[in-house]
């Protein structure tokens, strides 16, 4: 018998079930793209029939970090850049959980970049949503890792001399097995992509363009957007790395020139998740580890019986 009966309940859900009664109204600025993520996530969770209590939403610091304040589930609002290692371990401890990590472009591609690279490389079975507004919002408008070259801010008064980071290319090269870009202005595509990302057995990375009307007024509102999977102008095979890589490069360049390309870029359905790989080499139990601590009949091993002989 499981100690975690919210897992696998599989009942019909309404998207409003994920709205916390005590704090239903987010404090994001009017017109903020973050509302789009919240709406899409609620829609995706409802479509998948997920119980709020089988979901763990782990966030970093920033406007994006408030996601789990406004999405009613188990939540862990961590520290700047560290949502991924915490989320990863929770999934290893209890693979039954649906784990979603989220943060901003500064959080995920800047301070937490190392964790992003390694989480993608290891292919943990989880979804990572990066709210990419090309700016630091909560700290009032500093240049971020994805700000375009020449972007002026209080901390870069003469404009950024740095090329923006290429999130999609980086993700693919690091090893993510599902990579997509969506935009807050396109909630239906966003919801569908989140559904696919959660269903995917591996590390799903969604670069989610979230316009910041307050601190990044110069930036495009990410309209009009083009869905590369629907458009006749673009030809992509999402199972092919080369095809994905080429279009990602083009997409990243295009954004700087004002053209917003979105959609699914890469989906490797064959690569086993990290959990599976670890179980294959005998370094992860088949039964969720967390269950063991609630099993009153479990006979805990003793070092005295198992490991002491070699010291005699």
């Amino acid at each position, binding site marked *: 018998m499981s*100690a*975690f*009966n*919210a*897992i696998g309940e599989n009942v019909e859900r309404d998207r409003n079930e994920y709205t*916390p*009664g*005590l*704090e239903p109204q987010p404090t994001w600025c009017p017109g903020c793209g973050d509302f789009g993520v919240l709406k899409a996530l609620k829609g995706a969770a409802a479509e998948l029939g997920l*119980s709020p*209590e*089988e979901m*763990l939403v782990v966030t970093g610091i920033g406007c994006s970090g*408030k996601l*789990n*304040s406004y999405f*009613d589930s*188990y*939540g*862990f*609002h*961590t*520290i700047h850049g*560290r949502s*991924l*290692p*915490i*989320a*990863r*371990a*929770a*999934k*290893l*401890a*209890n693979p*039954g959980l649906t784990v979603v990590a989220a943060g901003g472009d500064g959080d995920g591609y800047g301070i937490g970049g*190392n*964790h992003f*690279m*390694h989480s993608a490389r290891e292919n943990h079975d989880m979804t990572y949503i990066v709210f990419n507004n090309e700016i630091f919002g909560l700290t009032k408008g500093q240049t971020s890792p994805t700000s375009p070259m020449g972007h002026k801010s209080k901390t870069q008064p003469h404009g950024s001399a740095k090329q923006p980071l290429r999130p999609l290319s980086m993700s693919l090269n690091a090893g993510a097995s599902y990579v997509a870009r969506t935009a807050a202005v396109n909630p239906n595509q966003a919801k569908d992509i989140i559904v696919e990302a959660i269903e995917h057995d591996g590390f799903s990375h969604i670069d989610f363009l979230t316009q910041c009307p307050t601190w990044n007024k110069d930036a495009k509102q990410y309209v009009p957007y083009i869905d590369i999977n629907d458009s006749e102008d673009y030809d992509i095979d999402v199972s092919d790395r080369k095809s994905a890589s080429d279009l990602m490069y083009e997409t990243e360049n295009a954004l700087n020139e004002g053209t917003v390309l979105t959609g699914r870029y890469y989906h490797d359905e064959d690569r086993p998740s990290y959990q599976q790989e670890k179980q294959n080499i*005998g*370094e*992860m*139990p088949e*039964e969720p*580890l*967390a269950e*063991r*601590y*609630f099993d009153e009949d479990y006979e*805990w*091993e*003793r*070092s*005295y019986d*198992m*490991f*002491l002989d070699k*010291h*005699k």
Partner: protein
Amino acid sequence: MTDDELIWRIAGGSGDGIASTSQNFAKALMRSGLHVFTHRHYPSRIRGGHTYTEIRASADPVKSRGDGYNFLLALGDSFARNPQENAYYGNEEVKPLSENLDELREGGVIVYDSGLLDTSEIEDFDERVEENNWHVYDIDLRTMAREHGREVMRNTAGVGVTCAIAGIDTEWIEDLMRDAMPEKILDPNLEILEAAHEMVREEYDVDAPDISVPEGEHDEEQVLLSGSDAIAYGALDEGCRFIAGYPMTPWTEVFTIMSQNLPEVGGISEQVEDEIAAAALAIGASHAGTKAMSGSSGGGFALMSEPLGLAEMTETPVVLVEAMRAGPSTGMPTKPEQGDLEHVLYTSQGDSHRVVFAPSDAAEAYRQTRKAFQIAYEYQIPSIVLYDQKNGGELRNVPASVFDEEPNGDIGSVISEEDLADAPHDPSGKYNRFQYEGENGVSQRSIPGQKGGRYLATGNEHMPAGHIAEDPDNRVYQVNRRMEKLEAIRAELDEGDVPNNTHYGPDEAEYGIMTFGSQQGTVEEAVDRLNDDGHSVKAFGVSEMAPYPVEQVSEFLESVDECLVVEMNASAQFRGLTQKEIGKYGEKLSSLLKYNGNPFEPDEITEGFVKSIVEGEELPTHETKFVPAASD
């Protein structure tokens, strides 16, 4: 050094197999009925560089490395750099012999490999031999090893020679080699051992030195292990089944032992991208309902500061271990020091609340690691086990019965799904996981996946169900509740059946010596010698660094006229902690410090005590430093 003990030092280059040879030799002596204690000295270098291991063996229990040594086996450094005239490192090849002469006692034995070492390269070698009445055996161990096997087996030849001179029955060594060595190399090693033993007995005068191995008998079964082994076994016996880490000397030992053993008990080990991730993974695994740990040494632990604070604020149980080495910065990676005490006590921002244990030896390391888990999971607070390169790495015999304890998989203050149904929730249905009222400040946590238990864990200040809030009243309630846990923990520790802090020596003694962590055994040996010499001294070894045992230490300090605080750092951190926590007795507390990369020897403490406290004189060398009391 007493007449009834052997202190054997095997010296060579890093990579010459000093560690494995000495470990086997120590175990053989333990099996023969002796008490053994090893001390490792090795450089932070890939290959080569002077390294040695010392094994002290006696019929009586041994608590420290002792003073100096009486038997040197110098193998020569087969990975030495070529001697060049102006290089600061000089002739490295002879260092296993030349660098070890200063501490060799009068009348001691030198066995050296004449196949690799040339004593004419060592200044005044013959004069020093004569002055100190050393017995020198120049034996071509290399050739002997080549004849029967391979050159790397010259260690075994050296052990054979040692047995012949010290009168050790080679059967103990042979048994051990049969247990430890794969068949392919076993036979040549056995041959070499026998040949070396025979040759020396026949061709050399083995009776000349007044050194022989004592005879002893254990009254119960013993195991040979290190503090790192004991920490790992303590964690495993507390049901810890998740570890995350990043390699760093000397913490790597605990991480390695856990990683090798966890798969056998259905646990998970994760080697990750950095120490920030390592601590964060342990927190994530604990949050999701497992018993988890991480750890590092100074620099890596510095990276854990922010996750540590997150664990405190979210009241996520976690155990971290910190293996100190000489700092600051990269410092001396393979050398022991106790300079991270303040680092682990105070790192991370805000009003922090954590528990810190500093065990002295393997038995304490096992018990206190277990206690660290119990406190962490019962009180939802990070616990830290603070040790160092010395007690982490030194092998010594410990009664096997120390580990014959019941395992404990209890995950502490966690609410069940059944109880969640009737537990207080906020109006939106979130569980009030951070309630104001709780026994000892503890509010039971729920685990993701439990029905009716959802809440928000956050590093921000928060309301009972986790909502981020800056309301002043809520802030005060939450801070007070988190701090309240510390007082409850202090009370629990004070009432413990097995004390973590150790009194030693006569109750009514005039003087006191205080220490913490790994120096305790050495202090105890010094206390015995001082009392034998007519002084009146007792010791108090403290393991509870936080919460600090204010009452116990106050009682001890009240009972003595003066107290010398012995610690392995330059800034008297433990003495400073004591004064901060107690706020008086400053006039009684002086310090004896050592920070040259080597742990104290007992005579350095006896001499430090006699010169500084009793005679009021300067210390004779700069190896240790005396810092007088505030009033002096």
